[in-house]
């Protein structure tokens, strides 16, 4: 799929740190409309930090973040909230509200933001559950009653409740068995095509990177060292990228592909 050239999110010279240490140093990154961007990096290199900074959960030390063409530093409270409604987030652990049922979780933003009839909300929740591939009776369950894969799907349904333009996925396939992970990849791809989503995906899953991502960005030493289609990263001479993609696991993936 040829991604459009419009940037929905663009990050410039971003610096984020804790205490003495800067985790992200002068980081630049663009997210183009309609693409699925995979974001890789070693554990602890600051992948989640970048996502959390864009989402406004962490303060930044320098740099600018633009979303939908607006500098997030210059927007007021109301506009900020309007922007936040245009993106959805799937947290690593799902972060479903444990005291609400799955249906209530999905309806939460609908109920708080829109004046909708209960009937319509119920129907929408059922439709979202269907979209993420969960059986309708899941709606009445509490998050504690779901398996890991179902929690991820339910959380994805919640992040899609308001039909966001961008979704942030923090390691969506971690902790899933290969079949579920593959299904989840297909699901993301299908939803991206159905809803015209732009997806920012932090992941370590080499299969996800190969099958669903239009572009991949690699983070190392606080900077994006390479960004582009997966093939271009595979050919990169950077030692870390070499180790990442051509290490033991990467090689087995490649040889599997050639067969």
């Amino acid at each position, binding site marked *: 799929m040829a991604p459009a050239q419009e940037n929905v999110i663009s990050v410039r010279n971003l610096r984020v740190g804790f205490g003495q240490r800067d985790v992200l140093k002068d980081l630049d990154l663009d997210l183009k409309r309609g693409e699925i961007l995979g974001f890789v990096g070693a554990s602890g290199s600051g992948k989640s930090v970048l996502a959390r900074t864009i989402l406004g959960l962490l303060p930044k030390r320098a740099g600018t973040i633009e979303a939908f063409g607006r500098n997030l530093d210059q927007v007021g409270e*109301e*506009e900020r*909230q*309007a922007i936040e*409604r*245009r993106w959805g987030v799937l947290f690593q652990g799902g972060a479903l509200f*444990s*005291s609400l049922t799955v249906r209530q979780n999905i309806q939460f933003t*609908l109920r708080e*933001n*829109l*004046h*909708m*009839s209960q009937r*319509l909300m*119920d*129907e*929408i929740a*059922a*439709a*979202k559950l*269907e*979209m993420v591939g969960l059986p*309708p*009776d899941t709606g*009445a369950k*509490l*998050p*504690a009653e779901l398996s890991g894969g179902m929690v991820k799907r339910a959380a994805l349904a919640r992040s*899609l409740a*308001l*039909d966001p333009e961008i979704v942030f996925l923090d390691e969506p396939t971690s902790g899933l068995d290969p079949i579920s992970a593959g299904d989840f990849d297909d699901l993301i791809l299908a939803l991206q*095509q*159905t*809803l*015209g989503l732009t997806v920012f995906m932090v992941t370590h899953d080499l299969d996800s990177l190969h099958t669903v991502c239009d572009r991949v960005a690699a983070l190392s030493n606080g900077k994006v060292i390479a960004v582009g289609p997966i093939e271009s990263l595979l050919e990169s001479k950077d030692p870390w990228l070499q180790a990442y993609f051509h290490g033991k696991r990467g090689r087995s993936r490649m040889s599997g592909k050639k067969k």
Partner: protein
Amino acid sequence: MTSGKARLKSLPFGVGANSVGVEPVFLQSELRGKKLVLSARGDWVAAHANEIEPQVESALKKQTRVDQIEIDASKVKRVDTIGAWLIERLKRNWESGGAKAAIVGLDPRYKVLLDEVAASNRQPPVPPKRETPLADTLAYIGMSAAESWVDLKALMQFLGHVMVAAGRVLMRPWSFRFTSVVNQIDRVGFRAVPIIVLIMFLIGAILAQQGIFHFRRFGAETYVVDMVGILVLREVGVLIVSIMIAGRSGSAYTAELGSMKMREEIDALRVMGFDPVEVLILPRLIALIIAMPLLTFIGSMSGLFGGGLVTWLYGGMPPEVFIERLRDAISRSTFEVGMIKAPFMAFVIGLIACVEGLRVAGSAESLGEHTTASVVKAIFLVIVLDGLFAIFFAGIDM
């Protein structure tokens, strides 16, 4: 109508259309021969759902005898899941009436979305069970009664478990977690001293003030010393300290153990071959049993000091006289009664706190529930126990 995007930017969701005087029209119906044409227009998105839905419903109410319906979506600018669903609902309702419905003119990029939505909500929703209020109340009472039986059993079982663990530690004294006990004593004992001192000082002072105020009418002010001395040493000291500790340390125990349970830390201990009761609970219980008499002692002294200060400043009784009278008013047994009760109170508080902590299930709500239950039950049992002790000590003339 302004474009949807601009409105989304400038106005919070859902507020927009209501504050505008004229209701925008999203759906118009028109009869063309034998065909009903429903023309949709505008942004069929979540922000307008509260306006679109009534228009869809009123279009459905006007259901006339036609067997062909055309939903003309050529003037629809944007569609999201909610809009797509409303279009689908429109179509589906007409179709269930036996008519033929077709959607025409919709921007092809929304076709996938509409197909996706068309597949959903095919099964009728399961209606939630509704019970009458009376049956609900009765069921609740029944369940609470059954629950208290379960509670009691769990407590007894846990008591047994603690005893076994204690026995095991006695057999192998080197496995006793001394460091852990010291750490816990620091947390529940040493750091509780300031608040206990402050509270008991105030309680002693209030008792003395009230005593002087009311006894003065009978000219019996000097008996205030007896009252403050006996009450603080025998009853109030240990009771207030117990209640404070149940609220302060009991709740902390429950929350700690509960979150450890939630994060599978307790299971981790178990599979590594440790007994969680021995590792986590025994040190906490022992720490509480050691700390509580000490706190009761400190608290009682602080209460007597507060009482003495008030009798001096408010009642005009010099401190020497207060101490002299106190010596006559109380005996060693008065002091002993209070101190003997303290470790038992500690044991009950600790036991309840730990048992509730281990019963926490997966959710944050459950953690809160059990922490509350821990404090409420501990305070209740402490007071019940105090009553039993009163009967016992009266029986043995102490």
